[in-house]
């Protein structure tokens, strides 16, 4: 068995074995094979070699699949989404409780509670004598001070405020602050004014 002098045809034989030739090339090789016994013999050898190299024992592909690691992107997405839901739920609960407390105080017929902007907290002249003045950060004041608000409905909060509140809740979960004065979103000072 000798080698065919047509090197180009010989190079195409393994491609033919793997059915990777387009129609034109396949036709050219087929035409060559009808006239070249060396290439026919070589093609048979290649096919026999390929058959001989098939695996003797089949591999356990299920075991391979079972051993594969989990995709890295998955575990990071779901818990984050879950945590986000809990954060929002916690924020809404805090806001709702604040609103209910204010309502309860009002319904008890106690002194009228007036919410004033903390930025103008020194100006309590508008309050009735004997009224409880709650100095709280309104959304507007909060945005000026970089702080948060309490005692307002969720609809009063801008997106940025809600995001900031969620961020603050996260921090609280991770490391509760010891100093209550440093708790910016819970900043509320209540007292009875002299009404002067």
């Amino acid at each position, binding site marked *: *068995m000798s*080698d065919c002098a047509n090197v180009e045809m010989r190079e195409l034989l*393994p*491609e033919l*074995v*793997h*059915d*990777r*030739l*387009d*129609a*034109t*090339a*396949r036709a050219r090789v087929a035409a060559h094979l009808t006239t070249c016994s060396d290439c026919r013999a*070589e093609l048979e*050898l*290649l096919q*026999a*070699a*390929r*058959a*001989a*190299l*098939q*695996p*003797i*024992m*089949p*591999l*356990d*592909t299920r*075991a*391979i*699949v079972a*051993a*594969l*690691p989990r*995709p*890295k*992107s*998955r575990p990071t997405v779901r818990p984050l989404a879950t945590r986000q839901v809990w954060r929002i739920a916690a924020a809404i609960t805090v806001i709702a409780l604040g609103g209910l407390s204010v309502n309860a105080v009002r319904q008890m017929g106690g002194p009228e509670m007036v919410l004033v902007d903390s930025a103008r907290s020194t100006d309590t002249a508008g309050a009735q004598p004997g009224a409880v003045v709650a100095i709280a950060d309104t959304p507007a004041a909060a945005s000026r001070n970089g702080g948060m608000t309490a005692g307002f409905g969720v609809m009063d909060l801008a997106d940025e405020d809600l995001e900031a509140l969620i961020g603050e809740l996260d921090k609280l979960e991770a490391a509760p602050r010891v100093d209550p004065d440093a708790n910016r979103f819970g900043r509320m000072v209540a007292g009875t004014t002299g009404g002067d």
Partner: protein
Amino acid sequence: MPPHDPRATEPLDKELIARWQRGDERAASLLVERHADAVGRYVASLGVRDQVQDVVQDAFVRAFGSIEGFRGDSSLRTWLFTIARRLVADTRRAERRRRGDADLAEGDASTEYDALDQLIADESRQRMHEAIGRLSPTQREVFVLRVSEGLSYKEIAEVVGTTEGAARVHYHNALRQVKESLYV
């Protein structure tokens, strides 16, 4: 000349990888079923006998564990071959150190490969196996990648760590030697 790929209608490896990354475990099964046998054949051609399953499994585990590093410049199969080759080399090196042997290069691989012949009943198949077993490890590796797996010289060069020209020379030398073993 554009190659004709009969699997052109099947999802591409890249698509399956993306699906697996989104959590589709079926995509991983398809990839394993598509490539495991080829990697197994290649690993066996390197002279591995009893641990083919383990090496193939490790190759897949490593590939999927660092799939972000797969740039898609080469095919996934070529990448798996490269990883499997490295695993076999590491195992042999560790064995050499453990046994305190000197260089275990060509001899042991041939011996392990010859052991496969005992499992082959068919006579013509056995003769072919013997002929391939007489090749040098590099010739055998290149021959298997070209004939059994249909890799291009460029892909073979990537797996084996050589040049396209050298891969072509190894292939033709291997083919000539197999012919001589069978017909002379």
